[in-house]
């Protein structure tokens, strides 16, 4: 699957189906601090991602 990280760098990962939460934790990212867009749609982190999916991780860290 193709993962677009918060700094917009792209990582291609070859792995079996996993939940988005598992993927985030493997990347060292706390799921409460990001929003995940899977194939163009926002999804909850307990949704699974599979080979061929695009996962975009948006971090919101600054005030407002």
């Amino acid at each position, binding site marked *: 699957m193709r993962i677009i990280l918060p700094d917009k760098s792209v990582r291609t990962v070859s792995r079996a189906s996993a*939940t988005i939460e598992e993927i985030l934790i493997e990347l060292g990212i*706390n*799921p*409460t*601090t*990001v*929003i995940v867009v899977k194939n163009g*749609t*926002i*999804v*909850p*982190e*307990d*949704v*699974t991602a599979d080979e061929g999916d695009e996962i975009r991780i*948006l971090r*919101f*860290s*600054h*005030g*407002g």
Partner: protein
Amino acid sequence: MTPGENLCSLCNEPAVVRLVEPERRLCAAHFIEDAGARVLAAMERERMISPGDRVAVGLSGGKDSTALLLLLHRFLPALGAGLVAITVDEGIAGYREETLRAARDLTGELGVEHVIVTFADLFGEDLDTILVGREAQGCTVCGVLRRRALAEAVKRVGATKLATGHNLDDEAQSVLMNVLRGDLPRLRQDTSTGQPGHFVPRIKPLAVLSEKEIVTYLLLRGYFRDLPECPYAGTALRSEVRTMLAGLEHRHPGTMVRLMQFRDGVRESARSAEPAKALSTCRICGELTSGEVCQVCRLLDR
């Protein structure tokens, strides 16, 4: 959870969020409704708005205040209250220009009256100049001056309430910071009632939504802008508390809400135990202070 199982609890469309208490999954349209309904319920429960109010929204142009203006613009007419946006331009080169533009765009689109006040106008210098040689104190100095600037703007526009975009994360972080500092007076301090002649009541309608929910709301409504981070951001303690609380919230969902319940409990028991300390007026500027000279005059070496 396969995509086929991730469906909105209300309509069976694909869900974009999973929420707890009560446990539910919501599609984009139902999440937008749900978030708005929770903010409206909080405003009604805490009697934040009275008919005839003129509510000033502190609009930085960032995500929280953008969501706040969108929601108040939707709800205030039905509550019989008017709306005006106020923006404080501190004078932070390379940062404030873009958020000011976002604030102007939004108020223009919604047709909301918009007033901008500047540190240069109110205090004689912009923040960048005030902070020369003490940049590390940026957030502290700015916080004190910004509160005064907002109070001044509220007077200028004749508002009866000041609404700010503090979200659940901000508020829970503040509770924990006050505990870690051992600052009981600040933990008890309740600005929602105001001080006649000095401060109008301050309301925080977004304190029931997490930062993540607010960003999700803005993304779904097409109002999220990736704006630059303030160059003075990141005071040591808040930054550490933010990371710690985010970890706790992930492992123990509901931690932030329970911190707010703790704060409300402390306020309630303190209210009945002893009267709040009386405030006096600053001998230099005449504004309220707990000492002889207020923080603003001390910071500006008046």
